[in-house]
């Protein structure tokens, strides 16, 4: 059992969140999108696993390096 933290790659605001707690995700699957400097920046799962926690929702501001999602890689 190990939990992987997915970090916001830059400061901005969350436009859309595609996953909910308990959902299975594949590696590189898109989890959410952040708008920053007029760009839509996708945030993808670095590993496959189960979404353990979603710490943001649409319109939330985020800072560079904030934890936005935790994924459990399973045992």
């Amino acid at each position, binding site marked *: 059992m190990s939990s992987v933290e997915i970090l916001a*790659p*830059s400061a901005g605001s969350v436009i859309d969140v595609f996953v909910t707690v308990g959902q299975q995700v594949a590696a590189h699957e898109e989890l959410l999108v952040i708008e*920053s*400097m*007029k*760009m*839509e*920046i*996708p945030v993808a799962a670095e590993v496959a696993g189960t979404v353990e926690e979603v710490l943001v929702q649409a319109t939330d501001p985020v800072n560079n390096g904030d934890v936005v999602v935790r994924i459990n890689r399973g045992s």
Partner: protein
Amino acid sequence: MSDERDPIPPTGDAGWSPELAELARRHEFVLGMGGTEGIARQHANGKLTVRERLALLADRNSLREFMGLMGDATYRDLELDSFVPRPSVEGFCTINGRKVVVSGGDFTVRGGSGGGGAHGGLGMEMSANRRALEWRVPYVRLLDSAGGSVRHFEEIGRTYLPDGNSFTWPDVRLLRVAPVVSAVMGSVAGLPAVNACMAHFNLMVKGTSQVFPGGPPVVKAALGYEVTKEELGGWDMHVRQSGVIDNVAESEEEALDMIRTFLGYLPQNVWELPPRSVPDDEPERRDEALLSLVSRNVRRAYDGHRAIEGVVDRGSFFEIGPLYGRARITGMARLNGYPVGIMANNRMFGASTDVAAGDKIVRLLQLCDTFHLPVVSLADEPGFSVGLEAERRGIERAGARLITTVCDTQMPWVTVVMGQLYGVAGQCHHRPSGMFQRYAWPSANWGSMHIEGGVAAAYRSEVANAQDPGAKLAEIELRLKAIASPFRTAEATGQDIIDPRDTRRLLCEFVEEAQPVLKTQLGPTSTPYRP
């Protein structure tokens, strides 16, 4: 007739054994550095000693020290009593089998600070930077010293004019002759702080190294406020905010490793070609992911690193300045074993060229021009940054510097237009002279300015006088976008458009073709490297 003669028989030491014993004793003092207490303090501060660092940096048993007997001695009855070595260790060594000059500050001796009574003058041996210059070999500085100290004034009973350029001029010349790396391994102030930047690449260690002309006590005296040395000159200040230092290492071991890696892309000096590695990746490899990298939605970001990884030899990319000016990725890589400089716009950070990104580009281009590496530009350029912050930092002068550098270089250059290419920043992905090749992906689009925004300016009266200005604007934009297809440009100019998956193969071919051209460019460049 034979040249063979009997060997000269050993005839004893002719009475020189006391001198040999003294030499050994002096060596012992030198290896003891600033003494056990100073060494313990260095370790307690989470730092290695200069000799431990050199053991990690240099190939085994390759260090050949020079000026190693310099220091402060005391005598009793004309016999050597004690000896404190000078606060640095310098010498030749090899790194991956290649000769370099290395100079390491020794913080265990008086905090690495100058000192040392009445040394120098006539008969002084050649300095480390001079030797690197005259031997035409790379120079590595392991900086760990606090610069000058007013204590020194008291020792010599006078002050002196700050004529440091008398021994810094070889550092300036060396930047045009051989690769130079500065590693900041401790708190570094004064001339050593500036020497951190007299290099083609520099780095520091997270948490244990800081850079400033004057530290917290000097700031307090001059400006009246308290600041920690980490806040003032730590990695966050210099690797993220100021760009004074290119890279940060998590440990000293990693820092020394980075030096070895960086030097591996460069030749010994400007009269040689960069060394080709044994190719370990297929030049024909087609990365399928390149096809979907650039979205039709121009606001959709992707990581520019992905583009670089998709074209260079696997695992060969070494990023320079990864935390500064992040709209542009810059670094070194290999294509079919040949070292290249490579850069890519990064939409994850807006992609548009700001002053910080411009600084990085200028330094990469100068580096490649000086040491004869082809340059690869993976372009997705929205243009120079606009807005109040860009103006405050002087984006126009940065642009002028960038154009000047681009036009002054001569190394072979290949640009791949992956997405956007707009404005004067777009112009800086092109060089009108020398061996220059450009490819475009079908996703490419370009212009002297963007259609959005540009229409409102160029068709102002038509839009204003229309019955429905909004609809008119949209109609004109649609009309213009239809003619923005790269194929329309190709019809007129011959621009080559390629399948993104063929990029690696074409870049490998370009770099192969560049080799004979690079050979004709060996030697110093007409535009000297500026740090």
